């Protein structure tokens, strides 16, 4: 965990509204493990004083790349960054994904910018696996060439049917789990909205496989001090069998059996 005064190398548009921000971060970039994130300070506008967490999409030597979508105050301010601008970085943070067991087939499941959290993992795994990508429409299906370049199989679902099968990402996932798998055991790695994470976890529990879910929660400090980013997790020692875990420190990745979902999540 380091504080670094990073500078923007470049920023460019990806598909649809998505954007990529490439930063020079020689202290942090080489230390990032798959599934970890950085906590980024922005040129402070009045209404966004806090840092924002971003998965590290990929690193290359001293460079660190972020994939994001302008949504709110922080990410809209990010759009204005250009070459040479200073950006405060704090990272790498979080536990990250474990490496897939050598005896399983790694299956990644991503929704939207969830892809950003998974690519480093795919790159780190020696063997190719399969990645399931879901989104509202074709432009939400990111990074397909990157995964294909690693030799990974990519299966796509869009809600409007504009790319891949029509429906949620669980449709191609279920098809694969039922038909293509044979006697191989899958190991699931997912990042995306909570209902998607929960659906992936349900399948893993039913099938008796492991599923590693990267959870997204608004953050304050990013280092475990403020107790903003809590997620309910199982804890047999605690009253009622649960406790709060800090997503920034104990997470963002949890095995699906550890998470206690709330109604409506």
């Amino acid at each position, binding site marked *: *965990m*380091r*504080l670094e005064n990073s500078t923007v190398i470049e920023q460019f548009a990806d598909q649809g509204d998505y954007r990529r921000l490439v930063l020079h971060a020689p202290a942090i970039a080489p230390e990032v493990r798959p599934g970890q994130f950085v906590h980024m*300070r922005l040129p*402070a506008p*009045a*209404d*966004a*004083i*806090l*840092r924002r967490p971003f998965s590290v999409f990929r690193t290359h030597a001293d460079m660190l790349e972020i994939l994001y979508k302008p949504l709110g*105050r922080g990410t809209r301010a990010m759009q204005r960054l250009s070459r040479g601008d200073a950006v*405060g970085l*704090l990272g790498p943070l979080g536990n990250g994904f474990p490496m897939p067991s050598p005896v399983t087939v790694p299956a990644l499941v991503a929704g939207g910018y969830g892809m950003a959290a998974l690519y480093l993992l795919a790159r780190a795994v020696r063997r190719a696996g399969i990645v399931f990508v879901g989104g509202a429409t074709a432009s939400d299906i990111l990074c397909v060439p990157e995964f294909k370049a690693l030799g990974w199989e990519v299966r796509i679902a869009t809600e409007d049917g504009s790319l891949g099968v029509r429906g949620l990402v669980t449709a191609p996932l279920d098809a694969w789990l039922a038909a293509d798998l044979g006697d191989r055991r899958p190991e699931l790695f997912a990042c995306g909205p909570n209902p998607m994470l929960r659906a992936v976890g349900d399948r893993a529990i039913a099938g008796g496989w492991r599923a590693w879910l990267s959870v997204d*929660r*608004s953050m*304050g*400090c*990013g*280092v*475990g*001090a*403020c*107790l*903003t*980013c*809590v*997620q309910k997790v199982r804890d047999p020692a605690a009253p009622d069998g649960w*406790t*709060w875990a800090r997503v920034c*420190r104990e997470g963002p990745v949890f095995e699906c059996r550890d998470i206690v979902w*709330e109604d409506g999540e």
Partner: protein
Amino acid sequence: MTPTPDLSARIGSLSLRNPVMVASGTFGYGPEYAELVDLERLGAIVVKGICLEPTRGNPPPRTVETPSGLINAIGLPGPGLEGFVREYLPFLRSVPTPVIVNIWGRTVEEYGEVAARLDATDGVHALEINVSCPNIREGSHAFGVRLDSFRRVVETVRARASKPIIPKLAPNVSDIAAFARAAEECGADAISLINSVPAMAVDIETRRPKLANVIGGLTGPAIHPIAVKLVWEAAGAVRIPTIAMGGIVSPADAIEFLIVGAAAVAVGTATFVEPRTAHAVVDGIREYLVRHGLRSVAELTGSLRTGRDPCGG
């Protein structure tokens, strides 16, 4: 050349190497920021609020950003007194920086009990009494905004602790000087203020509160001018030292507090944004003292130039 100014500060029997602490609830229990912040350069570490038993706090969302501010409704989760002593105190004892434990209770007796036990615990140098957290429902809020209950808490803690005690004042009162004086009369060694300002935010699309707890406390730069006014009035009303906090992001914000009467300051929300804010504040105060030919922080404390009576309101 001017000699290096004296940055030390005294809180009762406790002496600090510099007047810049980190505020309770914004620095965890010490280890969280240890990789980023040089703990030996802090005036003191004030840990997150501790009560007798382990507590869970509120469900998320626990914080929401506002213009130049942050509302939190963490709800005082914590490991409880024993958990704190077991899990965090060994680490804190290894750091040569005074540790101030922020305490709270659901009843006056609980305050007394936590105080007595921490008073007997090695490695705890002072107690800050949180009577003003707006995030817990069962009464603690009332302690801080009503003089009688405030007095009872401070007297009880005083009776059971010989270490320095520092009641932390609630900002949402109309006469802060009265609370400052009550603290002094009940034997407090110092006062600290301000705690967060009760606040709320609503998601207009869902028409639901943005915080699970509905109400939280506002902190950060937005509240700084409110804090300066309250610190001025409170510090002017007592002879014991005042520890000021509320929206410090730069050395200037801290110096403002010192000028209106604070003997020391604490950095809160700003640490989330720039973990080393407290260091920058210490450096900035030193530089300011040199530039203004002042030999100590004490010379700056309360040096506001105004013809007005500090309690005129």
